[in-house]
């Protein structure tokens, strides 16, 4: 009895393993479509040995398979993007809400793909063509802008730790500069610090504008431009920090 139980349990887990392994392989195959896969359609169309009916049947089967594989690949793409989105660290409730909203939009995208896969069941050759056309148009009009927004949000989230580090450095630098300025009377220090503060303020303002652009779901190009501006201003801040560092080191060495 115990032996039977063991065999049953081992068999169950082996079947589960095989199932998940099989699914994984299938997913990998879905995203590896090659020109040869599409050439199969033309080969069927040009095969003189096939009757008209057989040709239609075979072409339909191949087309359905290819459309299905392509949509499943697109779904895998959505899953990857959603996984990256959910892994992004948010520090404010606004950002967390935006993350949830974008994740919901990706869920909608996945539902759209599921709907198109369902349509495929009763479709003929022209039906599969129509589904492919619809999915292509939807991707261009809806999914690509959404993917752009999600990618921008991930990029913006990653930037926040850089801004926090720079802010901390700015506060510590202010203290050091104020002490050294009092002790040495060097005005270059204050000027260099003011320049750093100005560019950091600009960087923070652009960072906030980028967040607003993301929250308002403005076109991805606009939010990306603001993110780039904020990073450039932050880079400029570090250039000012380097200038400050040189002045401080000169003062300390004398």
């Amino acid at each position, binding site marked *: 009895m115990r032996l039977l139980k063991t065999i049953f349990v081992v068999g169950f887990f082996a079947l589960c393993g095989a199932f998940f392994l099989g699914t994984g392989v299938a997913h990998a195959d879905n995203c590896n479509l090659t020109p040869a896969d599409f050439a199969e359609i033309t080969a069927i169309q040009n095969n003189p040995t096939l009757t008209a009916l057989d040709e239609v049947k075979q072409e339909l089967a191949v087309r359905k398979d290819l459309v299905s594989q392509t949509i499943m690949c697109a779904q895998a793409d959505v899953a990857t993007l959603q996984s990256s989105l959910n892994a992004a660290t948010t520090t404010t409730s606004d950002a967390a809400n935006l993350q949830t909203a974008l994740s919901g939009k990706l869920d909608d995208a996945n539902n759209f793909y599921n709907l198109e896969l369902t349509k495929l069941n009763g479709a003929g050759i022209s039906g*599969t063509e129509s589904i492919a056309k619809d999915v292509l148009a939807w*991707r261009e009009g809806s999914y690509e802008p959404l993917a752009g927004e999600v990618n921008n949000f991930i990029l913006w989230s990653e930037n926040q730790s850089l801004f926090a580090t720079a802010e901390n450095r700015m506060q510590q630098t202010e203290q050091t500069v104020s002490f050294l300025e009092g002790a040495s009377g060097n005005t270059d220090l204050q000027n260099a610090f003011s320049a750093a503060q100005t560019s950091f303020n600009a960087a923070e303002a652009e960072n906030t504008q980028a967040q607003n652009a993301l929250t308002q779901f403005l076109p991805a190009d606009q939010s990306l431009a603001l993110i780039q501006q904020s990073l450039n201003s932050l880079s400029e801040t570090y250039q000012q920090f380097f200038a400050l560092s040189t002045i401080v080191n000169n003062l300390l060495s004398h």
Partner: protein
Amino acid sequence: MNLSDILKQFKNIEPDPNFTEKSKRMILATPQTAPALTVRGLRMIFRVLETSAAVVLVGFFILLITGGFQSSRLSPVQYSVMDPQGLHAEAQAVEMQIELANINYPESSAAPESTSPTAAGSGNSATSSALASALATSTASSSPVANASGTASSTATTSTVSIDQALQELSK
């Protein structure tokens, strides 16, 4: 009787029971005068202040030890904030993020690019060449940042067809 015996007898001396009872009653009957209210209030305030001061002092030392005043004026001046090596590492992280952001622009604009369609049934070689040209000219992708970090699954490589290219091919 010597002096020692006399002294020993002193141990047996007891007060008069009536006197004892009377004294006891008098003591118990005397009203207990509580300290003045103001004095009690001051004592209470002093105790509260004492406890608060102890708590504040402990908190202050904890913050001082753990570096809680690192960014305030109470912390000692740190010349290490001007350390070029630390600055360089942070600046490099910013530069890397700028590069990552710049990758978005060309790939986003390349995404709509697609194959030039060929007539259906025009032959095996025609379809293959259309796809081949598409592969050569387009790197269409729907997740540029993910691609930049090497995690996207839909990137068109030299041997595979992108999602959009596949759909384009299947829609004709």
